[in-house]
């Protein structure tokens, strides 16, 4: 992976070309690690790398400075080749204090590079982190390439004459670290300088101080004799196009804006803040110049109710939440599906059960999405497979909701919601439109008359004369929609609702198979595990194994060709960040002895752990 080359503008140091690097910045919550990591990522993206990120911040409360509970981390893998994951294990760990070192060291690869802010390794901080001896001194770091730098002091010295307060100076030390890393990976500083100047436009002193710290770090790298080499990660050969770096929640919000443009409908987001979904609201609420409206309700019940009300009014009602919120919404989702109105419920999954691990990722809400309502209450369930894919997934989910007149649940998760990756921007004009046809003709209108193909009933906008009608949650006559207690009618309606959702599968594109169409092992996945699965499978294929992968966007109904594909493989293995939820569905449906790889640690799969688990299924 590593090839020596020379870099003209860093004559003093050897510069190695690398195809991919994984760095993790970690420090106290107050150390600005998320900011540092994001900015490093942005610069890498601008340099044309493919990349993925994994922010990992602690619980929502700011723990006392220096404690293990307060450690915040940000990992990014950037590469000249396509990147599928934020990297299994960092090769470079920047640790701003002992607590950060302690809770992150185990992940660093052997012989990895460790950059420590030695100034933070005080007795007090060591105690807080639970160290009984100083790891910088006790030999426990012998396996790594350790660079202990007193970043605190160097920053303080650099900013001594800026007139900034001690606190402001202390806060600037992350820019020193960033500068050092930019230098190490042969990145220009201009973009960051400009960004800092904009960000602190109202505080020019602070801006100048941060720029100074950044440069100090950069020049420290160049000057100090500590580092003997820098690295270059060339631009990735990504498909041609315009790119931006995007997180899943941002992509979701942009998907909603695009939905409104493409459908011609007002998009009404009724929601209630909850980690890790809140950023969808934060982002969408900025775009009020579009035909979108955001409403922070009093709770999740009101949130989904308001969006159903909006759908009744002829807008597309959307709600965004996480698992505990979905629990509260199910009664209303059930109403939506029985009155057969389109609605979009976005669940950014997090660690459960109950409050669980709000800031951590998991895929354990799939069965809740499919089965979590009373009665026979089917609806389509989709999942996004990566940060940028959230945009496409929203469009697809909205299309299904409108075409089939049904609420749809879209599953994303904390990993892709907060993680970033480069996104090849679609051409806005080439996105397919999917405007609904509202019924306006009063002749022979029956509220529950159905489209013979999709079984969808007609959508009528209040305000349309002659089509006044009433809907509700009681069972209704199959044609008129009037309340009906007739036994046969009920059975017919139950079966029709099931069939209507089943017919969503008529429109699902054939599944694409990564690898041969038949063979020993098929790895079936869904959601955010896509990147890790694909990389693991490709690596195993490269080793000559008979293994292929299929990744599902549609979890309910399942694609029509899935059964046939499964039958062509000797074994089916389903990796999931849960105890086997898709696995159960596949076993029940296809009577295939599908096996599962399960991880429930609040973290995404590592490629390496997937690979070794899959190897167990290969002869």
């Amino acid at each position, binding site marked *: 992976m590593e090839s020596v080359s020379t870099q003209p503008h860093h004559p003093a140091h050897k510069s190695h070309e690398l195809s991919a690097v994984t760095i993790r910045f970690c420090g106290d919550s107050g150390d600005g690690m998320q900011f540092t990591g994001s900015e490093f990522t942005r610069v890498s993206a601008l340099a044309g790398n493919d990349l993925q990120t994994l922010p990992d911040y602690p619980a929502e409360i700011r723990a006392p400075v220096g404690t293990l509970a307060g450690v915040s981390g940000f990992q990014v893998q950037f590469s000249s080749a396509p990147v599928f994951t934020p990297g299994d294990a960092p090769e470079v760990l920047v640790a701003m204090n002992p607590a950060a070192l302690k809770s992150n060291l185990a992940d660093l690869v052997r012989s990895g590079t460790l950059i420590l802010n030695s100034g933070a390794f005080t007795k007090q901080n060591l105690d807080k982190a639970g160290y009984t001896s100083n790891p910088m001194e006790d030999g426990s770091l012998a396996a790594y390439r350790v660079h202990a730098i007193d970043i605190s002091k160097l920053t303080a010295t650099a900013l001594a004459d800026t007139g900034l307060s001690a606190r402001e100076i202390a806060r600037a030390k992350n820019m020193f670290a960033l500068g050092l890393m930019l230098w190490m990976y042969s990145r220009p500083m201009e973009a960051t300088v400009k960004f800092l100047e904009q960000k602190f436009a109202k505080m020019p002193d602070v801006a100048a101080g941060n720029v100074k710290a950044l440069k100090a770090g950069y020049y420290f790298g160049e000057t100090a004799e500590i580092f003997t080499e820098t690295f270059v990660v060339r631009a990735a050969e990504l498909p041609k196009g*315009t*790119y931006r770096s995007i997180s899943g929640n941002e992509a979701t919000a942009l998907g909603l804006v695009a939905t409104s443009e493409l459908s011609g409908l007002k998009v009404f987001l009724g929601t209630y803040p909850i980690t890790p979904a809140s950023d969808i609201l934060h982002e969408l609420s900025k775009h009020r*110049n579009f035909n979108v409206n955001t409403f922070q309700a*009093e709770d999740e019940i009101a949130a989904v109710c308001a969006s159903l009300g*909006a*759908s009744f009014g002829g807008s597309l009602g959307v709600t965004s939440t996480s698992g505990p919120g979905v629990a509260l919404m199910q009664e209303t989702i059930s109403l939506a599906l029985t009155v057969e109105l389109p609605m979009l419920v976005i669940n950014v999954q997090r660690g459960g059960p109950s409050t669980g691990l709000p800031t951590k990722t998991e895929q354990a809400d799939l069965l809740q999405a499919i089965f979590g309502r009373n009665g026979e209450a089917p609806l389509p369930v989709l999942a996004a497979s990566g940060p940028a894919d959230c945009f496409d997934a929203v469009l697809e989910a909205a299309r299904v909701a409108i075409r089939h007149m049904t609420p749809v649940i879209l599953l994303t998760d904390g990993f892709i919601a907060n993680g970033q990756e480069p996104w090849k921007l679609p051409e*806005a004009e080439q996105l397919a439109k999917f405007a609904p046809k509202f019924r306006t003709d009063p002749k022979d209108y029956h509220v529950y008359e159905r489209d013979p193909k999709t079984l969808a009933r007609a959508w009528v906008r209040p305000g349309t004369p002659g089509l006044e009608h009433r809907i509700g949650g009681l069972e209704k006559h199959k044609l008129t929609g009037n309340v009906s207690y007739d036994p046969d009618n009920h059975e017919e309606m139950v079966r029709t609702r099931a069939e209507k959702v089943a017919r969503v599968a008529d429109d699902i594109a054939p599944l694409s198979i990564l690898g041969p169409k038949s063979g020993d092992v098929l790895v079936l996945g869904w959601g955010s595990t896509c990147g890790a699965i694909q990389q693991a499978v490709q690596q195993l294929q490269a080793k000559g194994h008979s293994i292929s992968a299929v990744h599902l966007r549609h979890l309910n109904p399942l694609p029509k060709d899935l059964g046939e594909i499964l039958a062509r493989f000797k074994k089916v293995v389903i990796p999931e960040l849960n105890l086997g939820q898709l696995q159960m569905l596949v076993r029940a449906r296809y009577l295939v002895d599908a096996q599962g790889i399960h991880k429930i640690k609040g973290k995404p799969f590592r490629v390496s752990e997937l690979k070794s688990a899959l190897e167990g299924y290969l002869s």
Partner: protein
Amino acid sequence: MTETVQSKLTRKDFQSDQEVRWCPGCGDYVILAQVQKMMPELGIARENIAFVSGIGCSSRFPYYMNTYGFHTIHGRAPAIATGLKASRPDLQVWVVTGDGDALSIGGNHFIHVLRRNVDLKILLFNNRIYGLTKGQASPTSELGKKAKSTPYGTIDAPFNPMHLALGAGATFVARTSDADPVHMTEMLRRVAQHKGSAFLEILQNCVVFNDAAFESFTAKDMRASRQIYLEQGKPLVYAGGTKGLRLVDGHPEVLDLASGKAPGEPMIWNEQAEVSAAFALSTCAAPDFPEPVGVLRAVDAPVHHILQESQSDAVRKKLGAGNLAKLLTSGDTWTIS
């Protein structure tokens, strides 16, 4: 807006084809009749009106109105109506609810709609009982009430719906009863006219599970002496002018104007005053005080959908109309060619 010959609408136009299915003698019939009678006056086309309800006997109401209607789930009508109104400010949206629906399971949405001043016309049919589920105590049932769920009497003190609404910041609060259709019609008119959340408590008789709950003061021969009609700009007098009310240190006090045993100046009623007086009046209850009916509060305040629309306009002015291509390519982008 659609072209309709609104002036020709009649009561009949607001009757749907569904058979009305309340118990014979239920107060809900009276309310339905008054609403259907009053609607044509508003000059609003049927298609621009929506009735949203929760679950309960009262909540069957939308089925009987030949407008757009949504019989939703228990307690959630205000929340659903909020989304409807926010996304369709052009519609007139009515909410029909019961004392259990609005104040028990739906209490949270009820107070939040009022604080936001969402432009909904809320009719609360208060029969102080759960009708549909056959007779359990509701949050307006009196302390000690024996009902199916409380064979030894409820130990929960009731809400005063007017209190709760005023405490939540309601901009319009009024009260009437099914025993007085003429007054009810007047109140319905006022509700329709109010800009913002308009809350009308309608004392409604459930003949089956809580018969005659309000008779002691709503009966025809009791009204004059046991109710006080709040009328804008008029003195607070009742019992044929022989009695009056004033506020002393914030608290209501009955004046005996005829005998002169408790003399004083009756307060001049002002529904547009700050909220405290309305609150004080709403504490009046039989038997020590006359029961208030009429408009307790009617003030102009920023209306939710109007704030929302002007905010959207302002954002559009500032950022320009939304352009998807521009939005997608905003921020830091790079090009690979």
